[in-house]
């Protein structure tokens, strides 16, 4: 018996080392791989929450119309009814979602460039879209000297 133990020592020792190695590998693996990994697929589902937690810059027009009744009514009555407020006013979540919106008063749009971006005549634009050669059409005057931005009908 004692003879057998002595002879098999060279097998037992590597086996012990192998087991210890396996144990360390498993321990390190569990320490590094997030618990829920693989719940939906080969990825960490916590990433979904991290991406969802990013902040919003565009509040959405449903917010704007809650407070700005006058502009909302004017817009709804005209051709800009489907143009979102922030499409002209830029990202305003910091204004619309603030406790005190007047403390984060948004700057007014730069009319000289604003209307041109949508209405400048371009052969690639759909034919039914109202477009003008702005330089000829306005004679250099700002568009809102004649048109109301919220309801562009004269």
């Amino acid at each position, binding site marked *: 018996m004692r003879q057998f133990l002595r002879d098999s020592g060279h097998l037992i020792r590597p086996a012990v080392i192998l087991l210890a190695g396996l144990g360390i590998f498993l321990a390190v693996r569990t320490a590094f791989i997030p618990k829920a990994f693989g719940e939906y697929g080969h990825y960490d589902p916590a*990433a*979904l929450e991290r991406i969802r937690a990013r902040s919003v810059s565009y509040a959405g027009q449903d917010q704007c119309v809650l407070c700005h009744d006058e502009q909302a009514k004017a817009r709804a009555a005209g051709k800009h009814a*489907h143009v979102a407020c*922030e499409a002209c006013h830029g990202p305003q979540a910091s204004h619309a979602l603030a406790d005190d919106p007047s403390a984060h008063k948004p700057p007014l749009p730069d009319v000289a460039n604003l209307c041109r971006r949508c209405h400048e005549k371009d*052969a*690639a634009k759909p034919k039914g879209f109202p477009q003008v050669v702005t330089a000829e059409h306005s004679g250099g005057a700002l568009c809102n000297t004649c048109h109301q931005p919220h309801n562009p009908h004269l």
Partner: protein
Amino acid sequence: MDITRRDLFAAGGKLLILASVGATLEQITGAAPPSEAYQAAEHWWGMIIDIDKCIGCGNCVRACSNENKVPKGYFRTWVERYEVNEGTHPEEVQPHVESPEGGINGFPPSTREDLKSFFVPKLCNHCAESPCVQVCPVGATFISPDGVVLVDQNYCLGCRYCIQACPYGCRYLHPETNTADKCTLCYHRITKGLTTACCENCPTGARLLVDFKNPKDPVHELLRANKLQVLKPYMATRAKVFYKDLDGSVR
């Protein structure tokens, strides 16, 4: 008073029973998943782009850039202007495509009435069989349960395999984080009930966020009544961005 071994076992046994009852109760009451308003399994997101409505104003590109803090010179969505010379020989149908700075400031006006010209907004197609996800060696990019292709910044090695793999050129390496970056279909907005920044700011409704799992979504009617196409159908990526009235020359 002497404590015998028997007393010790009895007390220990009682404590054990109490503790296990407590643990079971905790399992039953505490383990219930927090009821959440957004259920990913009930959605399957995509987009419809109506070529005949796009005016090339670049609002979508600016909105995306602002909303997602996209670094300057990189684009998660962009607009291309196609000019197609409808020649008699098929070889002559070589579209001229331009996209100055992704169309972020619109386009210099074109007066070429003799050509067929139109705008094509592009973004990640959120493919259901996406090649970019298949090549990722570490599981950093994946398709979410609601069908959005996302990148886990914490896992990404920056190996660029996915950037090479995307047939639509929709990915880039973020210059600051050195990880792959792309359109998230505004995952942080659509899971809150908002639409994407690009759809919110599209003045003509040329872009429409759709949910294929919502039976009331207009997408079903649109798919029935129109011929909608995807880009590069021969890649068999099962793209979920559908184009209405797409010209055959668009790649």
